């Protein structure tokens, strides 16, 4: 792998899980220290952790979403802590609810400025979306891996939509290959 893979940095991991039972959110929010619950703004309880830094959204159906973590391990750790806290309140949580990673957002860089106009035309206008009037980035939808890459004029990119940290690397390599093929990278 090229050295550019080192520029990949995971910014956010979102995972979901299910406690398997309905919850009384009013009660839960008062019992969990630091939990926020404003049903008028948002229908779930927001429970923030400092270590690892993340926010967990707990819904009435018992579904749980953890967001803001910086790695897949952090997500598991955070949800483990949340489940522990809920268990302490006397709510019977099954020993290990399956945790499913839904989305990983990574940033990376090609370390050189890009001519998005040329890229837009070179990559074929079907796969990409480049509307500088609406958004400064070029949206490149890959089929394999199934992720969306946002390319910016500065050469920085955002890779999102993957479920696996490796997909960011594959996507970066793919983008790099395609751009080199087109002669748009030095």
């Amino acid at each position: 792998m090229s050295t550019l893979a080192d520029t990949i940095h995971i910014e956010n991991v979102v995972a979901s899980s299910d406690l398997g039972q309905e919850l009384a959110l009013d009660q839960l929010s008062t019992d969990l220290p630091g939990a926020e619950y404003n049903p008028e703004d948002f229908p779930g309880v927001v429970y923030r952790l400092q270590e690892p830094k993340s926010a967990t959204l707990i819904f009435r159906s018992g579904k749980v979403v953890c967001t803001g973590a910086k790695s897949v391990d952090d997500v598991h750790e955070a949800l483990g802590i949340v489940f522990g806290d809920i268990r302490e309140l006397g709510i019977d949580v099954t020993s290990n609810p399956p945790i499913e990673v839904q989305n990983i957002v990574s940033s990376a860089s090609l370390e050189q400025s890009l001519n998005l106009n040329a890229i837009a035309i070179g990559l074929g206008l079907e796969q990409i979306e480049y509307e500088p009037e609406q958004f400064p980035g070029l949206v490149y939808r890959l089929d394999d891996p199934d992720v969306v890459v946002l390319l910016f004029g500065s050469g920085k990119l955002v890779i999102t939509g993957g479920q696996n940290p490796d997909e960011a690397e594959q996507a970066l390599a793919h983008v790099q290959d395609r751009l080199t093929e087109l002669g748009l990278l030095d």
Partner: protein
Amino acid sequence: MSDSTIRTYSSDQRQTDNDETVSTPDEDVLTCPECGGQVIDDEEHGESVCVDCGLVVEENGIDRGPEWRAFNSTEKDEKSRVGAPTTNMMHDKGLSTNIGWQDKDAYGNSLSSNQRQKMQRLRKWNERFRTRNSKERNLKQALGEIERMASALGLPKEVRETASVIYRRALSEDLLPGRSIEGVATAALYASARQLSTPRSIDEVANVSRIDEMEFKRTYRYIVRELSLEVAPADPAQYVPRFASDLDLPDEVERRSRELISNAQADGVTSGKSPVGLAAAAIYASSLLTNHKVTQSEVSEVTDVSEVTIRNRYQELLEATEAAA
């Protein structure tokens, strides 16, 4: 034989010297039955002739053009026996009958009140028959909307025609359910203006549209993706002439603006920048450089770009030009 058109390719061994040989893949291949040579149309004599052996393959060909000649447009109007060409800008392609709104007969005399009432009723029924189902009514409304917005934006007929075709495609591919007619019509118009290199900014289009900007942008992205429209990114230089004339600036400014923009593009500082913003800044910068000063707020007013954006892009344009010099 000078106006002869070549109909076919000869068989492969003999297309060596003729550089006027043009292949027309969509036409049926016709070769000489005697020698296999290429057959050409001799329009003067109405014959198809083999260029090699001179065999007349077909004679007494039909000339499908008009049998009359006209030397000016009045004569043409008098002699022509056909109506306007079909157009996608009308829901029935302009093929239906229209009953005029003036209550006049063929001689220009006013109708009697009895006849007038009759025409009124006929007009009503004609209107009802013209649009039979909901899709046609939908199309009629949308095309009316495209027409209205295009004329408010001063877009030429080709753009309206293309917008109409895009809308028809959206309708036939069932993209309409869940989106408003006005929204898709606006998006179709914006896309066609972009495709035909006469772009209007999103703000301008949104201003004349009946839907809000967010919905318009969303619909636009949706139909571009679903119809694979291939809209190339707008070139800032395409906005320049219009803005310059809105500000009453001379050609010199326009020329200078194009220069600034192409310098910036060569320097690669335009990536991800709004083309409208770049055009506005180029106009402002070149108005200063050529002593036809306009203020930032004047430019901002005409272009719908904020003064802050103009100032920022202005700096970048000048730096790019310095770098190029």
